[in-house]
């Protein structure tokens, strides 16, 4: 198969989910993000800390919008975020003199390590990237970034997903733990 032939694609997009499923995804992610954002603005922000990082929005897509995906399972959600946060901070500290290099290394290395540990979680890439491009407030956290906001935020998403997804008849979560 030639290079150009491969670009044509070979199959079709999977079907649309039901409207009920869309409704549950909306409701679940609303409450999940509400919980984490409420904690951030009510308690954490007052200490000039952050709990809200962009990658949690991406995690919400998976744990509420694609509940059955392996990428959305607890092992991936928590493992992927923590591992990537660690890689991101390390990349920033070692290669911080040229941020473009640190950013690239953070994301690429976290993808490889998530594969190696079977914790692939796409939002992990964002978590690693934010450790580099998040500015001074994130840089000052150092490796504390791994614990907070990352591990704490991932934990909150996990708990809300466990509660919400299992309250709905047509859903269950997780498919597997480890």
């Amino acid at each position, binding site marked *: 198969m030639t290079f150009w032939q491969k670009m044509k694609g070979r199959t079709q997009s999977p079907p649309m989910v039901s409207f009920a499923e869309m409704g549950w995804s909306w409701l679940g992610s609303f409450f999940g993000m509400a919980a984490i954002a409420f904690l951030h603005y009510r308690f954490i922000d007052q200490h000039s800390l952050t709990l809200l990082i962009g990658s949690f929005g991406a995690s919400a897509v998976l744990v509420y919008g694609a509940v059955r995906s392996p990428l959305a399972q607890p092992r991936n959600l928590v493992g992927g975020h923590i591992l990537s946060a660690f890689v991101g901070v390390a990349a920033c500290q070692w290669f911080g003199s040229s941020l473009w290099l640190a950013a690239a290394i953070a994301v690429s290395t976290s993808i490889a390590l998530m594969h190696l540990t079977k914790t692939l979680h796409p939002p992990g890439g964002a978590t690693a990237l934010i450790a580099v491009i998040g500015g001074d407030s994130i840089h000052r956290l150092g490796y504390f970034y791994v614990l907070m906001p990352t591990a704490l935020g991932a934990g909150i998403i996990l708990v809300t997903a466990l509660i919400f997804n299992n309250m709905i008849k047509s859903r269950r979560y997780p*498919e597997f733990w480890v």
Partner: protein
Amino acid sequence: MTPSNIACCTTVDLSDADVIAAMKEMEGYIDITPGDFKEVFRIAYIHALRRIMEARTAQDIMTKTVHCLRSDMDLVQAAKFLAEKCFTGAPVINEQGVVVGVLSEKDFLTRMGVDKPTNFMHIVAHCLMNRGCMAMTLKNHVVAEIMSAPPITATPHITVNAISALFVEKEINRLPIVDTDGRPIGFVTRTDLVQSYCTPFGGLT
């Protein structure tokens, strides 16, 4: 016939290990759990089977040489005819060649059993107890008197699924396939049907 009915005829039971082995061979990350894949496969298989069975009609599975009995035929002759051909039943036609009934072993047994539903073992028991030959009651009668009529027939375009449903619903074992004038052009038995299920992926148009 419901999808689950079809599925139990031919099912491939995948194990998690099979799916994981396939995923390893395919390389690259595949975003589905083995459990979900098995579920997708199981349901898709039922759909495939149903699609194939709906595409297949009586025309594809019927026996095309039909041996018919005449409605005015003597029962002894009819019995001899079925015995020689090793048939358990045959369509019955009238003078115009139109199918007017079906004659099967069941019709003979019912006739011989006078008052209650009879099976072959009933006949054996009766004979062994020296009560005489029950088949004597069949003498001097013709096919039209004991055949199942009106006949349940179908056109060559009836699907295999519909035939299965008909067999179950009407409690019959054979189905004469007739043209628009009611003349026999084929015959579908349970055996034909079973064979069509055993070769779901072969010889399809």
